[in-house]
């Protein structure tokens, strides 16, 4: 009030010094920072969810029916596609490699090549991609719909732990189903590879089989199955996490579903590389 009396009524407020124009890169950098923070925040919340859900696996016997239901949904629902894609992956590998190997008269080793590629890399990878599209996206959509229709809040009010009720059965089911489906993809891939080898490359089934068995060691098998297990965890955690963070009605559910598929693909690529590097990186002996 004192200040107001001291100034004549006609006085205009002192003009503010114009603020310097923001650097043209300021806004993109800010947005990038926000996006990175969001990624870190989401990864943190997903890891916490994973930990809590793993702790609830002690309730496996109590939730066995729900775990089996999830295994059925994920496993049987994807079995046909996994078998088909696995078979064609083996056929493509066999044909593509066989054509080049035949130039050197080495087409007989196609069995080794398909077997090792399927066991270590292509089996778990193709299975994970199919499960991401088929199961991970549906987890995100299902839980996202529950979120926007207040079902998650209803569970919270009833003091029902969502990690035990929703996430744990899906997580355990994916941890069981992904390696099993990977085995199916590997078997069918080798079958497809052998058929292509026999009819197009002139490699007998017996030779294909012996080459495949010779190259396959325990390490190749458990590396592939371990990869499948990790991919299963990724699909369940990303699908459930995206679903639980859904907001904004039907549009939000669509967004959660779409981004869950993309994020799963990225994680599968990165973790696929990291696991191969961990198990086989030492064999290079370079550097």
């Amino acid at each position, binding site marked *: 009030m004192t200040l107001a009396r001291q100034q004549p009524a006609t006085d205009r407020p002192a003009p503010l010094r114009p603020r310097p124009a923001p650097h043209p890169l300021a806004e993109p950098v800010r947005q990038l920072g926000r996006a990175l923070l969001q990624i870190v925040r989401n990864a943190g919340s997903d890891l916490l969810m994973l930990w809590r859900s793993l702790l609830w696996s002690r309730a496996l016997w109590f939730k066995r029916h729900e775990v089996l239901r999830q295994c059925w949904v994920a496993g049987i629902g994807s079995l046909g596609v996994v078998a088909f894609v696995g078979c064609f992956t083996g056929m493509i590998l066999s044909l593509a490699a066989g054509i080049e190997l035949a130039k050197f008269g080495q087409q007989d080793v196609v069995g080794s090549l398909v077997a090792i590629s399927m066991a270590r890399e292509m089996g778990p990878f193709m299975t994970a991609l199919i499960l991401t599209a088929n199961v991970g996206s549906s987890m995100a959509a299902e839980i996202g719909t*529950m979120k926007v229709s207040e079902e998650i809040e209803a569970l919270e009010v*009833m*003091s029902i732990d969502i990690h035990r009720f929703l996430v744990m059965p899906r997580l355990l089911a994916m941890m069981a189903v992904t390696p099993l489906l990977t085995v199916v993809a590997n078997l069918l891939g080798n079958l497809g590879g052998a058929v292509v080898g026999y009819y197009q490359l002139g490699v007998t089934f017996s030779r294909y089989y012996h080459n495949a068995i010779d190259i396959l060691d325990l390490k190749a098998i458990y590396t592939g199955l371990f990869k499948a297990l990790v991919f299963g965890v990724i699909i369940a955690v990303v699908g459930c996490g995206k679903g639980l963070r859904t907001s904004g009605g039907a549009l939000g559910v669509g967004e959660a579903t779409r981004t869950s598929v993309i994020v799963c693909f990225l994680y599968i690529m990165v973790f696929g590389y990291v696991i191969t590097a961990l198990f086989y990186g030492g064999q290079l002996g370079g550097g």
Partner: protein
Amino acid sequence: MGERAAGAAARSGAGRPGIELRGLYKSFGDHQVLRGLDLVVERGQTTVIVGGSGTGKSVTLKHMVGLLKPDRGRVFVDGEDITEYDSDRLVPVRRKFGYLFQSGALIGWLDVFDNVALPLRELSDLSEAEIRERVMEKLRLLQVHRAARRMPPEISGGMRKRVALARALIWDPEFVLFDEPTTGLDPILTATVDQMIIETRERTGVTSVVVSHDMQSARRIADKIIMLYQGRAIFEAPPAEFMASEHPIVRQFVRGELEGPITAELRAAERGLEAEEET
């Protein structure tokens, strides 16, 4: 109120404050929803909270069970300050509550029976026979026992609300919160749901808090109506007094008039937004 209701009310400790909200502030981003809300829900009564869309009615309800935490202010349930409680400490508090969500919030892959049985199966050591007995008792109470094995999408909106109420009542709660229970229902179903709320209170003596913008419904079921406006409780009274109020905001809301302080405020806000967009 009948003899049974009077007995039930006496058992529930009627008249004592059950839920108290003191100076509640809550915002979502830039949007300030609650601005110093003070509200008391007395035990054994049906309190109806009315107000226009976006005035914070559902937000108020969610604070009562700790689904939302206030930015400022305190929440008391039976005199216990639950404002800072985490989800573990909220378990015994939430056990006192049943919550009927606007959509019913029934789990889509469980049938009616399993939806109502869900809290008992997840949180109690009751045998399947005991669970069956309790669930069927609640389903009979709300006259939906014949639909026990039907899936939520196969039953009508009114039935879904009754099933959701059966689930909310499964622990015999002391408080039941209803979030817009009659929204989207036809007049007959609305009257049915109102009757369901009245009968539930008469039979169980439960304390009810109903969020609604349906004045007909509020008049039928309320012991007390509270009007929320701009994040504050601006008026409260028994239904008859509320309907006859000369408070300008209450009067416009009750009569549904186009001209009045509520619409003037909305227009001013719209003008402000337009000016903001122009600058």
